[in-house]
């Protein structure tokens, strides 16, 4: 075991962490906003809004993310109209293509998570809000959204972790995040096992921190829940 090499590799790979965090943070936060809109379209009861949202979720959940990334990065450049449009300075860069693909992808998964959360709000609360004379928008803002998001939070935490894993695919279109740097180091040193194991450790640390942060947010957002006593050992 060559500890000096492992330490050097670890430090070199840490250089990819800011890129990893940017890709995750931008795509998850933009995706969350889009997902709330799509979830509302799904729940609107209007087929003209419901079916496009359904189709979107079906297409983006039914195809591999790598296909979506290639379609945006290599595919869009096929059309002269796009190459001459004002979006081209962005779509030419792998960074923005990766962000676009990751955002569109997470939006589809998050839509279903948020829809589930909204559906879990007890109808009695909405009835009560109506009885108080709240408008539809006020009910949504004060009653439905806060409780729906709170219920959706554990599943959303999983989605954030899946997104940090998914950012590794950006390395395939030349972005130098952790996996990209790892592949480069492997081609220079031929020590695949040590380098990729170091990269794996970085992802594990980041995902551990994210899962702790989500658990903390869950506890903060449910003040009504009394501190639980230590759970008894489950019977085997």
């Amino acid at each position: 075991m060559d500890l000096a090499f492992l330490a050097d590799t670890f430090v070199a790979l840490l250089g990819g962490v800011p890129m990893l965090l940017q890709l995750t943070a931008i795509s998850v936060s933009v995706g969350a906003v889009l997902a709330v809109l799509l979830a509302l379209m799904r729940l609107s009861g209007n087929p003209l809004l419901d079916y496009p949202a359904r189709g979107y979720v079906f297409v983006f959940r039914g195809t591999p993310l790598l296909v979506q990334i290639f379609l945006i990065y290599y595919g869009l450049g096929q059309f002269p109209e796009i190459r001459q449009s004002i979006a081209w300075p962005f779509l030419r860069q792998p960074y923005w293509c990766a962000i676009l693909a990751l955002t569109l992808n997470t939006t589809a998964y998050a839509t279903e998570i948020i829809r589930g959360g909204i559906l879990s709000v007890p109808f009695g609360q909405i009835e009560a809000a109506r009885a108080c004379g709240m408008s539809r928008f006020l009910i949504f803002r004060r009653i439905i959204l806060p409780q729906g998001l709170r219920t959706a939070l554990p599943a959303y935490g999983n989605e954030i972790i899946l997104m940090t894993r998914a950012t590794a695919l950006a390395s395939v279109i030349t972005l130098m995040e952790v996996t990209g740097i790892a592949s480069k180091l492997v081609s220079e040193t031929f020590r695949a096992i040590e380098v990729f194991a170091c990269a794996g450790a970085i992802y594990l640390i980041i995902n551990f921190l994210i899962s702790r942060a989500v658990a903390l947010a869950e506890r903060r957002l449910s003040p009504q829940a009394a501190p639980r006593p230590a759970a008894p050992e489950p019977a085997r």
Partner: protein
Amino acid sequence: MGYFELMGFGPKGWGLLLAQATLMTIAVSVTAFAIGAVLGGLLAWARLTGGRGIGIAAETYLTVLRGIPDLLVIYLLYFGGSSILTSAMRWLGNDGFVGVNAFAAGAIAVGIISAAYQSEVYRGAFGAVARGEIEAARAVGMGRMLMFRRILAPQILRFAIPGLGNVWQLALKESALISVVGLTEILRQAQVGAGSTRQPFVFFITAALLYLLLSTVSGWGFNRAEAAAMRGVRRA
């Protein structure tokens, strides 16, 4: 050349190659899913009946494989496996690089990721088997093997079908990542076609459609299987 001529089975069409690539995607996903079923079953068994040490080991396996990117697992098996193989061959007196088979490395990589998800599905399904049935089987004097074969296994499989459907879809989509180590499945074939015809959008859209087709057909198959397996179960 029109779309259908380009993707057709004529002399200049890519239809035959894409059809072969689709069969390759199916073959590698099914192999990976089967590896995941065996390994996942063992993991679930270890977590349900094993001692503390085995339980912690199984838990660690799940945390690691759900925390690091799938791409990294594929790289680790392919490049790590190749470097082990190369040094083993050098020890035997054979110089030069020896690569592992892309199909084998990819199927094992996707398989061990799938195992992590499948073990959770099997564990949940075991929890859904009524305790009284196990007691009754013991009461009539069934041995452990007989009880597993006649009482537990059929019911675990029945309750696991919906969850296994989801895990299968994941394996199908993860199989696209094996294209990065050169296995000629759908995405790799689409890349080759995109490169030689300079029509990347057309080829990647076709790849996306093929994945949608596979996931829709298999989703329908799992629904049929669920309906058939559940016909004798009364549900709330």
